[in-house]
Each structure stands twice: as structure tokens, then as C-alpha cells.
């Protein structure tokens, strides 16, 4: 065995350039495969199985998927608004434990501004037993970081927003109209940041929370809850009939049956609103729709693996002619056919092993890059270091493919005629 690895090491060293190139090809291929499977699983889990803290979302009649994307992940446009009365009605429903209204329509440098009530900080648990916490909050210090006062133009921002925009406690900013950032669409109202939330590793990190009244009173905003345009006037209370909300985030009392009954009441019998429930299943629908993308990515990854396997075969096979004499010499020194055969297969497996080991690094880099992009785009945090069976199965498969790729050149080495390839006959 020691002798075998002696020969393999020397041979790989002797053909260092082709070895390095092939190892890199295998590394890219195996890294890509591992990354595709890992990202696919992680994103699926993060978007469909991750804890959102809510059981359902109530919104305008339309696509539940658009509703979930808009309210849970703060992506996409709002499908429309629902009247304030509907929010109050669902809030009073004994089956509902918590109902928090969202009003959207503004942004700051592309980060969504969400108007809501203080309950989002006081009652809502984004993860079981965990509420949003304001960084540096000290109840004994009313002038320090805290949640917003619903009567004032104050904002609480997510940690990612703070990191990317530079806003911090005490910063003053003016939101921009619309979901997408347009420089000329800045509102005149100024908001003071009174708190930065601790990181939650959720889409909420990308949100700027302001009082819901703030959205209603933003210049140029019209409320249509009563069927006609209504513009809020300073120092004047807004009548409830004019108010509307983009969505209501719901937490139920009780289990799945409650959700199913509400779906029956709102989606089947009702005509005004849509209840997106269960959120995970709604998101799974998105992944089903995008399944073809995953399949194409997987196919591409497999093709790259096939090319890498071919490159192992080619890199070794191309050296066979120049190595015939080497094999003949080894045989003349006492090496058995099986030994030279094993040397070639071991070379192929070694290239695959080195490539796979490097592939894990490549996979880590791809996952890290993907995690950065996904977090920036959605706020969802992927963990590049989460274990996935692909991290074991891919290197194992690559070793097997490497061994298979080595068979053809190994057979050529095995069949080398010793006498013919040694010194010229006399």
C-alpha cells in the first residue's frame, strides 16, 4: 500500500499541471453540486418551514402567495388593501389570539417602511418565546433606545437596515414613496429613529417600522376605506371608515382546525379578503412553480460532474502513451499487472478526492455568496455550514466516478507489453 501511494504521489507530481487543472475541475463540479442541493434545501426550509411567528395573513382578495411574499418576506407589491373594519372584526374574533395590521407603500433607500401598531414589539413573538428587542433598551431610561410612540413620527429599524443605511438611534430620515426607491419621490415628513432592533436573522431585519398612523398621514397618501379618496388632515383624527390596511398578521388560539374554519369563512364564503393559511404551504406553492429552475440547476450540476469525470479520464488517458515505457520498467522491476492497474485507478481516485475536498471549500464559498445575496434580497438567513447529505454523498459519488474514469486508462496500463516497451530488441 505504501508503495502504491509512493507511485501515485510521484505520478501526480510528475503531471502537476494536468493534475491541478483536473482537481480544480472536479472541485468546481462537486462544489456546484453540493451547493445546488444545499441551497435548494435551505431555501426551501427557510421559506416554507421556518418560523414566521404568525399562523396566517389576512389581506385583499387575490393570490395568497403574493400576500405572504408581501407581508412575511416584504417582497413583491401589495395585492391591495382591506378596510379597517375587517381588521377590527378579525381582531375581535375569539379564535384569534393576535392580529397586527400592516400598512405598506413607502420605502427608505429601498428598505420597506411598514406602518403597524406597537403590538408588533410588545406581543408578537417572531420565534417561540422571543420578541423583538431594541438594542440598548433600558426601561429606566426613557430618553434611550425604545419602541416608537404611535402618536409620534418615530421609527424602529431592523438591524440590517441600520447596517446598510447607516441609520442609528437618533437619526432623522424621510421615507420615499412607493415600494421601490426613486430619488425624486421623497416625502417631506421626517422620522426619528428611536430604536434599532437586535438581529433576528429573519426578513424583519430589513424593515423600518413606523406607527400605522404615519403611513396614513404621509403626504400624498389617500385612504380609500370608504370607497372615496380621503387625505388625512393634520391635527384631525382620521375616521375609522376611511382607514385601510394592507394586511393583518394573525396568530390563532388553537390548532389547525381554527385555521381551516377561518379559511372556510373568509376564502370560501367571503368575497372581500383572502386568508393565506398555512403560510408554509403557500410558500411551498412558490417552490413548486419554480421547481423547473431547480431541476435545470441540478441538471447543469450533473453535466458539470460528467465533464469533470471526463476530464479525469482524459488527463490520465492522455499520459498513457508516454507512460508505456514507465509501466514496462515497473513491470520489469517486479510490479504486477494488478499493481499498475491499481496505480492508475488510485491516481484517478486521488484526483477525485483532492477535487472533492477542495469542492467542499468551493461549496462553502458559493453558499456564503448565496447567503449574502439571499439575505440582502429577502432578509432570510441561510447557514452555509449547515450539514446536508450532499456534502457526504457528492464526494463519495465523485470518488466512485473517479475510480470509474480510471478504469479505461488502467486497463491500458494493465495491457502494456513489457518486452515491447523496454529497450530496443537485439
Amino acid at each position, binding site marked *: 500500500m505504501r508503495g502504491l501511494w509512493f507511485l501515485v504521489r510521484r505520478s501526480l507530481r510528475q503531471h502537476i499541471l494536468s493534475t491541478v487543472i483536473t482537481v480544480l475541475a472536479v472541485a468546481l463540479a462537486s462544489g456546484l453540486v453540493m451547493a445546488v442541493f444545499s441551497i435548494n434545501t435551505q431555501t426551501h426550509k427557510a421559506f416554507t418551514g421556518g418560523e414566521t411567528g404568525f399562523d396566517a395573513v389576512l389581506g385583499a382578495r387575490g393570490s395568497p402567495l403574493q400576500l405572504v411574499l408581501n407581508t412575511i418576506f416584504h417582497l413583491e407589491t401589495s395585492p391591495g388593501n382591506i378596510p379597517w373594519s375587517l381588521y377590527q372584526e378579525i381582531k375581535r374574533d375569539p379564535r384569534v389570539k393576535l392580529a397586527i395590521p400592516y400598512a405598506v407603500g413607502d420605502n427608505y433607500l429601498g428598505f420597506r417602511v411598514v406602518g403597524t401598531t406597537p403590538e408588533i414589539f410588545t406581543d408578537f413573538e417572531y420565534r417561540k418565546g422571543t420578541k423583538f428587542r431594541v438594542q440598548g433598551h433600558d426601561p429606566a431610561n426613557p430618553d434611550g433606545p425604545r419602541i416608537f410612540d404611535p402618536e409620534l413620527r418615530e421609527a424602529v429599524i431592523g438591524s440590517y437596515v441600520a447596517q446598510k443605511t447607516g441609520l442609528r438611534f437618533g437619526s432623522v430620515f424621510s421615507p420615499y414613496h412607493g415600494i421601490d426607491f426613486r430619488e425624486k419621490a421623497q416625502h417631506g415628513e421626517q422620522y426619528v429613529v428611536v430604536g434599532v432592533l437586535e438581529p433576528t436573522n429573519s426578513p424583519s431585519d430589513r424593515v423600518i417600522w413606523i406607527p400605522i398612523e404615519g403611513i396614513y398621514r404621509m403626504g400624498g397618501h389617500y385612504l380609500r376605506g370608504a370607497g372615496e379618496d380621503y387625505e388625512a388632515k393634520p391635527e384631525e383624527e382620521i375616521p375609522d371608515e376611511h382607514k385601510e390596511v394592507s394586511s393583518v398578521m394573525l396568530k390563532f388560539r388553537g390548532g389547525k382546525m381554527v385555521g381551516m374554519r377561518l379559511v372556510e369563512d373568509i376564502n370560501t364564503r367571503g368575497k372581500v379578503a383572502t386568508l393565506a393559511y398555512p403560510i408554509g404551504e403557500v410558500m411551498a406553492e412558490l417552490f413548486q412553480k419554480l421547481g423547473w429552475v431547480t431541476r435545470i440547476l441540478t441538471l447543469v450540476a450533473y453535466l458539470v460532474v460528467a465533464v469533470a469525470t471526463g476530464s479525469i479520464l482524459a488527463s490520465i488517458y492522455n499520459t498513457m502513451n508516454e507512460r508505456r515505457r514507465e509501466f514496462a520498467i515497473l513491470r520489469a522491476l517486479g510490479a504486477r499487472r*494488478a499493481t499498475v492497474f491499481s496505480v492508475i485507478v488510485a491516481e484517478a481516485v486521488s484526483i477525485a478526492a483532492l477535487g472533492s475536498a477542495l469542492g467542499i471549500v468551493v461549496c462553502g464559498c458559493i453558499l456564503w455568496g448565496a447567503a449574502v445575496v439571499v439575505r440582502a434580497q429577502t432578509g432570510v438567513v441561510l447557514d452555509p455550514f449547515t450539514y446536508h447529505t450532499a456534502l457526504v454523498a457528492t464526494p463519495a459519488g465523485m470518488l466512485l466516478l473517479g475510480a470509474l474514469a480510471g478504469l479505461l486508462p488502467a486497463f491500458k496500463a494493465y495491457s502494456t507489453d*513489457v518486452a515491447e516497451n523496454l529497450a530496443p530488441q537485439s
Partner: protein
Amino acid sequence: MPVLEVTNLKKSYVAPDGERTPILDLPQFSIDAGRQVALRGASGSGKTTFLNLVAGVLRADEGRVVLAGLDLTVLSEAERDRMRARNVGYVFQTFNLLQGYTALENVLLGMMFGKGLDRAAAEALLERVGLHDRMHYRPRQLSVGQQQRVAVARALANDPGLVLADEPTGNLDVHHANAALDLMCEACAENGAALLLVSHDTAILERFDDVRELAELNRVGAETA
């Protein structure tokens, strides 16, 4: 006691036209342990074929080749490989050193399939042939004479009972040829190994007490070989 004993050895090749062409028909040949024998043969007389048969690289059509008490003609290919690794050292005309390996590694290769890798022994061998300061040189970084020394060290790496040398000085000038021959003969004598050297060079052959003519021993005429 003979280390090599050949009886009624026959070997032929199948020509491209399908016709079988005899190349060797040797009724009897033997070498006693520790003896140094030269075999004279013209080009194409079957010298290399004979050495390959003795080393077990080729299988005889008929006859017996008994080396170190084992009849090669009844052994499987793998058994012949094992026997060759343990009992035969080979010095080739073109040395056949592996270019990607250092001098030391080439000698280690000679051990690998026999007694196993022994770095200290390989270094001692190279020291003995005067290459203590060239151990980590590649063959192309060595002079022809130095390459020859590495080849001799490699042939002796397994302490073989028989060293086969196929025109080992064919690529050397007179000065280097004599030096290489001295080295080979001395090293074999020190190791107690028998030496069978084939050559057509009269100057080389003259240095041996025991010189045999392949043309006389081989029943197949040189013209048919």
C-alpha cells in the same frame, strides 16, 4: 550450485503474416551462484529475448528456466513478477530510469516490489556507487555515467541472486564503459550476486573470464532470428 538453469528453452514470435518465427532454441545454459558470465551475441540474435525469458518477463514456448530453485515456466505471471522482484536485478542498455523520479526514488522503485521501501538502504547503495551528493537529482540532471550508476544501484536494491545486464555500456564511451563495468562487477561480487551480461562489444567481453557465444548455444541461426 547454479542460480540459473535453462533446459531446452524455445521461443518463437508470430510474424504479422501469421507465420511463427523461431528466435531461440537453447538446449542448455546455467550460471553458478556468484559467477560473472558474459554472453556474446550479434544484433538480432535473441539476446534480449533470452534475458526477458530468464527474468520471467516473457514466457517460454517450451523448456525450463529454473531460477533460484523455481521453474519459471510453470509459474503464473503474477508469481513470475514476484520472483523477478525478489531475485533478479536488471540493468538496461538505456538504463530505463524513470525521469520523473530522483536518483534515490529510482533506487527505491527497485525495492518496492521486492523487499519493500527502505530509504536508508537505498541511500547506502547510492553512496556506494559514489552518488551520495546526487541522490535528489533527476536522471536528466545527471551525466550518462551517473545515470548508469543509479541503474546499477537500482538493480542491486533487492539483493538479487542474479543481475541481468543488457548491453549496459552500449551508450557509454570507453572510459565510462570501463568504469561502469568495474562498478557492476564489484557491486555484484560484494553482494554475492551472479551477473549475466549480454553484449556484442569485444572490448567489454574481453574483461570476462567466462564468455559464451549465443550463436553457438542457440540452435536457431542468427539469420532467422
